[in-house]
């Protein structure tokens, strides 16, 4: 048995594909489109998943919020002192944060208030506090993510920003720099200010906080401690990081599930088209197969040639579709499609998809496309290959 690749047969197969340009062009075009869509969806979901996972991992283990009449209210800061006493709790920090709607640009910023001397509940904040030189006595400063800076610069704020208090007066806050965060989702829309500034901007009481985060020594005890907190403070909502993870994941799986379902339907439609296209034989094609068999091609040779054809078509479409999707997702950041998955991009500033190269995705798309395409051509090819050869002498 020779294992050498038969270049003459490949050449013949390519010629044969080109001879039926119209038909094959249509197939390749639709196939590329399908593969492109599918791969893009997987690339985007992979990136967002990664982004979410890093975000969720950096989220606090337990969040305690005060609930009144079903809505969230500011919580008393002295709850912190009570919570720290619970066994297994490593650290408790009160947070002040919220959203500020910047009407000029029509976007929401997330605003976080921090105190220098407190323990920070996020590593990225720790870095900010360390890096920014605070002018003594002047607490009126802000550090922002790059996305925010861009928006503000576009609106001619270069050195400071005027927040509008609830009562309509202005609060001038100076820029103290920008920061990088672990993930794009986080850094893009965040502004960090001091707690005092925050309370000033939003007119919040001295001894109140937005919520309280709890750090636990042993992650396995999270749910146990959460239920204890709920017992002590029945008027609170206690959220654990696991809850968040699951709900993020659900939204996400649901969306990609819908896409996959649509994809499968289009895939099957496509295969019916292929089956149909490759079954319908023109008399010219019939004559050609007759010639080949009459000059000594075996059924197996014709089958092999047909296999080469479908392999060339499907792998060409595969490579081309995947390549396009690479460019679309990672170079152009997937315009349009991304919005469907992130959903909230209208209000938030946009973020770039991190480059996650996952070989498995490539395999996955391969298995969904190439073998099924070749499968769809088996029976038509066999029909062709077993045609009677004596047609040619008439």
């Amino acid at each position: 048995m020779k294992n050498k690749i038969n270049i003459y047969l490949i050449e013949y197969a390519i010629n044969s594909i080109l001879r039926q340009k119209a038909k094959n062009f249509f197939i390749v075009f639709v196939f590329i489109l399908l593969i492109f869509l599918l791969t893009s969806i997987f690339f985007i979901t992979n990136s967002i998943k990664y982004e979410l996972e890093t975000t969720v991992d950096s989220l606090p283990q337990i969040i305690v919020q005060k609930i009144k009449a079903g809505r969230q209210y500011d919580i008393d800061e002295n709850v912190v002192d009570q919570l720290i006493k619970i066994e297994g709790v490593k650290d408790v920090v009160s947070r002040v944060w919220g959203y500020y709607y910047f009407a000029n640009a029509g976007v929401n910023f997330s605003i976080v208030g921090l105190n220098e001397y407190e323990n920070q509940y996020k590593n990225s904040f720790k870095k900010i506090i360390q890096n920014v030189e605070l002018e003594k006595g002047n607490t009126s400063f802000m550090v922002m993510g790059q996305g925010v800076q861009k928006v503000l610069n576009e609106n001619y704020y270069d050195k400071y920003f005027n927040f509008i208090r609830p009562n309509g007066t202005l609060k001038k806050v100076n820029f103290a720099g920008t920061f990088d965060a672990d993930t794009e989702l986080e850094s893009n829309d965040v502004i960090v200010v001091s707690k005092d500034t925050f309370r000033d901007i939003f007119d919040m009481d001295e001894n109140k906080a937005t919520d309280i985060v709890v750090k636990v020594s042993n992650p396995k005890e999270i749910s146990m401690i959460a239920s204890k907190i709920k017992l002590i403070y029945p008027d609170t909502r206690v959220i654990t990081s696991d809850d968040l993870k699951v709900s993020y994941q659900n939204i996400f799986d649901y969306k990609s599930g819908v896409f996959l379902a649509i994809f499968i339907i289009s895939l099957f439609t496509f295969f019916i088209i292929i089956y149909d296209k490759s079954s319908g034989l023109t008399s010219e094609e019939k004559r050609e197969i007759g010639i080949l068999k009459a000059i000594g091609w075996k059924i197996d040779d014709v089958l092999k040639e047909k296999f080469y054809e479908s392999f060339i078509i499907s792998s060409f479409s595969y490579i081309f579709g995947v390549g396009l999707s690479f460019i679309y997702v990672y170079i152009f950041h997937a315009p349009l499609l991304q919005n469907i998955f992130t959903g909230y991009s209208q209000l938030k500033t946009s973020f770039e998809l991190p480059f996650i190269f996952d070989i498995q995705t490539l395999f996955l798309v391969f298995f969904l496309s190439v073998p099924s395409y070749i499968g769809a051509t088996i029976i038509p090819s066999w029909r062709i290959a077993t045609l009677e050869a004596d047609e040619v002498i008439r």
Partner: protein
Amino acid sequence: MILSPEILAILILDFIFIFFAIIAFILSIKIFLGWDANSTTKKQYRLEKQSFLTAIIIKYIFIVKVPLFLFFIFTLDKMSNVIIGAMCAAGVVDATPYGIYLFIFKIMNLYFFGYWLVIHNEDIKYETQPYTRLKFGIFIGIFFLFIVELILEWLMFSSINIDKMVSCCGTLYSSSSTSSISIIFHINKTLLLSIFYGNFLFIYIFYLLRKKYLFVIANILFILTAISSLIVFFGTYIYELPTHHCPFCFLQSDYYYVGYLIYTLLFIGTFYGIITGFVEKSKGNKIENYKISVIFNFLYVILVSLYPIIFYIKNGVWL
């Protein structure tokens, strides 16, 4: 049931397989019952044509099945991230009662499909097509095994429960485990290694002597001794951990996917070894098969032996 894209892809391909396998099955029965190489009737001509379709379908299934098997393991590995307690594919296989049988059937069917192709290639060499009835008869049997595999696959994927704790490979593959695998941990390591290397030596001797059936038996045994010694001894050197015996973890990227290479070598080596016993006619072919078998088994032995040797050179001690 977790409907991840990977599982969905596997199920879609399973669906295509079933469709084609049923066609091949029906044609196989027709050919098996109606084949008469000496007849010149229309019916015989039709059967001859149909035999081509059947053969190409079986080839197609096999060719897709091989890489799909690797993808399957890949998928299990990935699922192990989601399932609590599982560290690698072993935990996922263990997560349902079907896992282990599915695995056995998958591997068995790979050997069977491969064997079928060997008979087929032999058959189409001769104008008399001496094995045609035989090969399609065999496929009728393989078909049922294949269907069992697909059903098991379906059952396994639909019964996996993300929230249920499963055992991790650390407990599955240890001497304290209650599973049947644990027996091999009670065999003396030196003895096991001697059996393993001895087994390979016998393969080589039977190759030199061209003792067909002994060669086949030695190869079948080699599958068992190779995997046992891999779990008990060589695996620990791949992980560089004396307590980690899992035969799945080294399929992961942390170990540079070396597991795929290990198992591929073992499969090719033993497969060609086993088929030497079944293929009759052409002599040249058989010597080829002997050689391929010995070479790949040898490469396997070298590869797994390198791990402890390199470990010893680096650290100066055995685990």
